[in-house]
């Protein structure tokens, strides 16, 4: 006989809830994923590879990776600095900064893109100056990097703030009182304590950077082979009824998504393990009195 806990729901309720959740997942996540691969391979693997080897597809992939590679270091630097300021110091305007960090989540990505057009576009605030100095931001890589930076910058900071707040300042203060310089304290004490949280934030930011459509679409100009990222490339091919090409490129994005998912799971697992380690049940304190300290005197 199995023991039935008083708080457990009846069997049919549990089955129903699990069923609904799994059914939803299948319908909205698994099925589309299968459909993407199905469509991409509709005319065989040969055509699929041809579509991926297309020069425009390859340049789109390269551009997506380039943008992510440029954006992530900025994200790390900004995220750590903002989280540090918010978690470890008291200052005026702290809650304002906390709110501002969330701004990119609240603003539609299209609006974010338009902001950069207004600032740096040909008719924008700095447009004439940029044109005079022959600097291209809009419809070029710098604009796309800026737009991606804007939509991804909350991820690292949001991940680190609660973590650093929970850890407090004690360990940093201990390091300083032991004679460590600010730099030594940061690399030897702070970084090891936040590394998994940082990794987690970076993974999320990276997924968003590679998948971003709206903001990048506004500033890109859709110049084939030059300013098309992978998501933009998918849209263009699809609008041209190039089903195979569009879905082949989409499989690359889906694949990147799956890699992100695996990495996220691994990092989450490491973080949980580390938290468990920190909050592990303590062995009972030994009650025997430590004998008198015996130091040898010269």
């Amino acid at each position: 006989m199995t023991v039935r806990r008083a708080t457990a729901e009846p069997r049919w309720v549990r089955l129903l809830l699990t069923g609904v959740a799994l059914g939803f997942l299948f319908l909205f996540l698994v099925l589309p994923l299968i459909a993407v691969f199905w469509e991409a391979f509709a005319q065989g693997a040969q055509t699929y590879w041809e579509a991926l080897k297309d020069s425009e597809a390859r340049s789109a992939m390269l551009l997506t990776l380039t943008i992510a590679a440029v954006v992530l270091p900025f994200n790390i630097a900004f995220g750590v600095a903002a989280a540090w300021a918010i978690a470890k110091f008291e200052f005026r305007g702290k809650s304002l900064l906390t709110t501002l960090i969330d701004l990119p989540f609240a603003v539609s990505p299209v609006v974010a893109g338009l902001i950069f057009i207004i600032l740096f576009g040909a008719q924008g605030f700095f447009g004439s100056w940029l044109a005079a100095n022959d600097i291209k931001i809009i419809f070029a890589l710098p604009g796309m990097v800026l737009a991606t930076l804007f939509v991804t910058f909350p991820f690292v900071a949001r991940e680190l703030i609660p973590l650093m707040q929970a850890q407090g300042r004690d360990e940093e203060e201990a390091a300083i009182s032991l004679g460590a310089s600010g730099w030594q304290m940061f690399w030897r004490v702070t970084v090891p304590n936040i590394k998994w949280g940082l990794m987690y934030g970076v993974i999320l930011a990276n997924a968003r950077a590679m998948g971003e459509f709206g903001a990048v679409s506004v500033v890109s100009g859709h110049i084939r082979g030059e300013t098309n990222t992978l998501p933009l490339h998918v849209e263009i091919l699809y609008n041209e009824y190039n089903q195979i090409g569009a879905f082949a490129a989409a499989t690359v994005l889906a694949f990147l998504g799956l890699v992100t998912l695996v990495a996220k799971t691994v990092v989450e697992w490491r973080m949980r393990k580390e938290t468990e380690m920190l909050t592990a049940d303590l062995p009972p304190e030994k009650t025997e009195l430590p004998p008198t300290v015996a130091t040898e005197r010269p």
Partner: protein
Amino acid sequence: MSIEIRNISKRFGNFVALDDLSLDIPTGELVALLGPSGCGKTTLLRIIAGMETPDAGSVLFGGQEATHVHARERQVGFVFQHYALFRHMSVFENVAFGLRVRPRKERPSEAEIRERVMGLLKLVQLDWLAQRYPSQLSGGQRQRIALARALAVEPKVLLLDEPFGALDTKVRKELRRWLRRLHDEMHISSVFVTHDQEEALEVADRVVVMNRGHIEQIGSPDEVYSSPASPFVYQFLGNVNVFHSRLHGSWAEVEREGEAPTAGSIAFVRPHDIELDVAPLAGGMTAGVRHVHRIGPLVRVELEHDGETIEVELTRERAASLELPVGKTVWIKPRQAKVFAAEATAPAGKQPFLF
């Protein structure tokens, strides 16, 4: 090394943490900063450590101006209430940290570091835990490692912020006696912060009683307990009965102390300084027994007199010989009392301060 604190003030927003406070800590002493939470004791300790900057005043180490010396150059060992061990480093690396972060030319060799760290771990009796991580240690072990880590840099001053506050009673008692012996062996000035009067009285050479950013009294544990300088100290160090002398004119003993009891002056009597009998006592007064609590070796009798509660502590034997059922009328008489003028007691409040 001696520590001198000169007219230190510190505010946090509108809250005055320390108000023009001065204190001398001679070399080699173990000093306790004792007071309720919010009295400024931790702030004072952090100012000595260089982790806070005072708004005014100065700190001198061994006669040398140290107010603006950075925390990393003060050569103080700091022990935190919650240990603050580096969680991702082994016990060995925790203790070695202070040596490893030294500039290259001052840094000891790997062999010297090893020798020093193992020596300190032996000193705190935990050399067998060198390869463990802080999370694998008990609270008492963690605090001993934290102490070893602080001692590794050979500090001139050891500062401890509620070092035993997070430990359970039994471990706390053992560890504080052990700290006392360690202090005697190390020839170092130590300052520790506590809100536990028993801890301060048992361990320290001198007790500094603090309240609201001021020092109420400085003295040996015996001095602060037996001759408190202010009503606050009287109430903070142990249980006390508070009598308003105007209301209790019958307390001839109080009046005769010669401390000019004016109307409204207040007398303090410790519960163990009250004589209790079932037979009438000359100069005594009557009270009704309300509760009898048996607490280990003591019996605490709660009495009611004129609507006020009076506590008396008796030995077990005495209580047994008296037989004190609830509701019985008994005679009480203080053996000694201390009278303070009413205005002196204002900050401490007029409620009996029992804990």
